[in-house]
């Protein structure tokens, strides 16, 4: 038997609140991340000022993804830090049982505690404490997704087995403010991907889709994932000023195809509560700090700008040699974080600024610009996740959302634009100005999986 890991004690009255009558954000039954955000935006479009008490109602939810949970975490943290009260209604009844088990499997209570310093039951409506162990009545039982505590009694003794262990990585959190050794944080996450999870690695090696499939046998895509996506996402998050917490999670999504349950995609989410990336660049530009490193790498992007009503404002082809200036819009500043040679580490946490470096003892070598390669982290991440592994990368930073995906030949032809087809389609959208700003930076990488003959 397994239940939510937090027990209720009498002195800490977490469920002192019942949310009946509170302003309520209702999540839909299928709570994918965009639907979750739409529910929050829709609530704030008719609510002003910011309510002191809000109920986040998940009672109808039958399907949830980790990206939705990460968005919820950012939302709950933002309100909690502002002294506002937010309570959750858990997915209800038998229909919500599977989702409640997913919350356990992803160790969501621990994740929320890491960000807010408050136990999970603090955020839960009193009525829903019945799903917890230790509460009056019965808690949830028989969790098929429990990480280690599924025990079977056989004639040989107890069996411990993790069903679907290769599909789930729970939320992992790192407190950054008290850690001097940020390299150890990267190493900690890297170690898991390099050596610990053999089943995950072997599954991904076989199932990740590699562009130019005839050459796929030559490379090990799971190693690309660990070396470029994980490492760059972690390194990028650690460089965001004023980040005090970093979270990572991942999940292999399944769906029914060909009358079988098959793995369809692999999702990785990284979130930090630091300054949004484009705001860091804006700060540097305002202070007239250089943010561009000379580079031989180039990239082009088809950029679709959408307004908060999801209507297309304009479309253009952007080139990575466009140099951001003080006049550059927030949208284009966020876009420029993808450009090779643009660094958000402009505050010099890790290295001197380019102009200072010129005075330093730079090595004079042939190959112009070969050694001047800071500011390539997100460029490399996108190259691997989108170009090589045919997935998508999305960014949530402040009021902006940006998604990068492969640009198909057909989509390019439809636009009838001149010039060579860019490899990427970038969608940038400003969220509705009514709701609270998204706290920090969130990077979501989605990679499709081969499921023929799985």
């Amino acid at each position, binding site marked *: 038997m397994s239940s939510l890991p937090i027990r209720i004690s009498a002195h800490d009255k977490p469920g002192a609140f019942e949310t009946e009558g509170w302003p309520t954000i209702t999540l839909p039954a299928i709570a994918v991340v965009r639907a979750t955000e739409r529910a929050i935006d829709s609530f704030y479009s008719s609510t002003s000022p910011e309510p002191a008490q809000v109920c986040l109602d998940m009672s109808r939810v039958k399907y949830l993804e980790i990206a939705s949970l990460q968005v919820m975490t950012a939302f709950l943290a933002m309100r909690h830090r502002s002294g506002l009260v937010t309570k959750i209604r858990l997915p209800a009844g038998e229909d919500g049982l599977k989702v409640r088990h997913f919350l356990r499997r992803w160790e969501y209570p621990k994740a929320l505690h890491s960000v807010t310093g408050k136990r999970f039951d603090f955020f839960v409506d009193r009525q829903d404490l019945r799903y917890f162990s230790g509460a009056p009545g019965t808690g949830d039982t028989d969790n098929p997704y429990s990480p*280690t505590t599924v025990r*079977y009694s*056989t004639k*040989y*003794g*107890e*069996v*411990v*087995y993790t069903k679907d*262990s*290769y599909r789930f990585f729970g939320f992992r959190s790192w407190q950054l403010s008290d*850690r*001097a*050794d940020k*390299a*150890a944080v*990267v*190493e900690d996450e890297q170690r898991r991907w*390099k*050596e610990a999870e*053999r*089943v995950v*690695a*072997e599954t991904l*090696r*076989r199932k990740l889709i590699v562009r*130019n499939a005839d*050459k796929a046998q*030559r*490379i090990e895509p799971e*190693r*690309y994932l*660990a*070396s*470029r996506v994980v*490492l760059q996402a972690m*390194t990028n998050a650690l460089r965001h000023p004023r980040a005090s917490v970093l979270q990572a999670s991942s999940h292999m999504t399944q769906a029914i195809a060909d009358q079988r349950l098959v793995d369809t995609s692999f999702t990785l989410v990284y979130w930090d509560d630091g300054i949004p990336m484009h705001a860091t660049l804006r700060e540097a530009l305002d202070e007239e700090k250089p943010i561009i490193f000379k580079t*031989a790498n180039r990239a082009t992007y088809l950029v679709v700008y959408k307004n908060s009503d999801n209507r297309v404002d304009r479309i253009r082809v952007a080139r990575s040699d466009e140099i951001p200036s003080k006049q550059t819009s927030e949208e284009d500043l966020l876009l420029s974080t993808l450009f*090779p040679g643009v660094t958000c580490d402009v505050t010099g946490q*890790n*290295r*001197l600024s380019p102009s200072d470096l010129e005075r*330093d*003892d*730079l*090595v004079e*070598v*042939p*190959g112009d610009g*070969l*050694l001047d*390669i800071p500011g*390539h982290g997100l*460029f*490399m991440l996108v*190259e*691997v996740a989108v*170009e*090589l592994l045919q997935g998508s990368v999305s960014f949530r930073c402040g009021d902006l959302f940006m998604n990068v995906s492969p640009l198909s030949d057909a989509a390019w032809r439809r636009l009838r634009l001149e010039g060579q087809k860019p490899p990427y389609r970038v969608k940038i959208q400003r969220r509705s100005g009514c709701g609270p700003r998204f706290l920090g930076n969130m990077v979501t990488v989605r990679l499709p999986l081969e499921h023929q*003959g799985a």
Partner: protein
Amino acid sequence: MKYGVLPFRFGRAATEPISPSFDKFYAAVAQMCADSNVVLARSNSPISVPLAYEMISDAQLMFRISSAHLEAWIGDANLVIIDLANPVDQILPNHHIIGSLNALIRYYSTTANSRKRRFLLLLPAMLAELDPVMQSIADLIDDGTLAAISNNGISLRSAAFGASPDEKRYVEALAIAHGRPEDAIRRKLVRFPGHFKRYADKRHSHCTSYYFDGRLCEAELVNYLDHYFASIDPTPSETQILYHATISRWLSNAVEAFGKRRKREVTNLALDFRVREDVRNVTLVLPLVDTGNTLDTLCNLIRQRAPKAKIRVLTVLATQRPLSEPGSFNFAFGSEEVRVDFIAAVMQQRFAPGECPACKLNIEATDPVDPDPFDKLSTHAFWALAMELGFEREENVPPYRNSLGFIPAFKRINDMNGPFLAYKVHKLLRSSRDLPANPIVICPQEDGVGAIANWLESVFGITVIRIPKTYLGSDSIAQELASPPEAFFLNSEAQPAWLTQLQSLRYFQEEFGKGRRVLGSPNYSVIILDEINSSGKTRSLLVNLAAKFQLNIICCMSLVDFAPFEKPSEMRVTSLYEIDLVSVRDRRGVH
């Protein structure tokens, strides 16, 4: 033809001597690239270039350090082997690493002392053609200056490169250098001490003192299964792979991973007794064969389901066997015999109900699912190890203190339980957040702690600097400190490894400071490790030595602390186990 090697080592902070097996490997690879006999270039430093996190995110730093290594011997070399595939499970080189090597190759293939010089890049896995990192060196490959080969033998080269490694021979040479997976499995098996109650037909049948755990060697086990099934199983469609893992999650992980790798269906009989009736061959994989009861039951059940199947068994561990390993034996069940192959033979203490010392002491049974819930050694674990291997009068007593008298036989304990104790040291460091990204341990060069240090190095990838006791407290270090920091690349053959390692740290610290806002820092952080602590003298000598090289001390750890109440206030001190022997001795006047 002369060759030189730039042997990078990921995740290491200090230089290390190149092992003889890799010396041979590099020579073999060079020979594959030559039409005549090859010779190592003069002054090719036989030490590695560590690739700590700081370096893989700074091309400038990596360029400076790599060229300091190369400068000593490049003028004499026609072929340069650049090893970026070590240790084996490494990340792919990123844009900083390849950026610096790109500049390095262009520089050293155009400088005045260059003849026709070729570069061979050893990679953990081949880079994709779409990868911008790969595209940045494509012209060097096209013109024959550079070739690349990966651990699985896939190579990328143009005809202009000339002779190059044959893919099959390269993989074979690399396998020899890395050692056989079965050797690594035996080396990495952790033997957890505890009070393990075993059951048969839901009744307590006996107790054992150890649980053997393969959590550290799952990757090697997957490789072993790969080789094993390739050799015994030429027609996979006719063979069903079964395994039986009740509490051994490590076996389940490894077999399932093998199944994913080879698209083979694998079935855990403990959860799903699904044996195909018409199958011709059944191979059963087990974590351990001890009494044979489970094996007997499983074989009989398989026979009932698959009357005509030929049954074969692979067990990772077998008890009651001569310790010649690996091996095989025949096991009789019903009226037939099956062949049982095993990877490692182990000794297991077994007690019948009523005879188990732990039961008599009412010691709670250890949960085999989590046999090691504590960060430190439990009292039961420590004394179980001590009682197993006995006591002896302390040897090699340092001149500055009295003997502790009879103490547990630490050398034998460490030799027999190296992986377990190294696992405990690593676990304690991690849980107390004392483990930096590229950890360095400084310890005295002696047998006792040496065994643990070897495992910390080979299993956990920790850089270990072993200081001979004769140098502790010696003033001769001052002279070494006066030498220019980069000289260690040149001096490495003439001086002891520990001195080269310390000098390399000093050099990297200085180089790391260049181009950084935080000039001159951060200093490398180290962990001081000793076998036993009694007077605190060895500890303080090691601390002083580290201070001379401007190294930060994260913590001082001893395996057993005999003076737990005499801790210096200025640093963190910890141990796996504490016995207040010093206070007792002082009270009793024992010497």
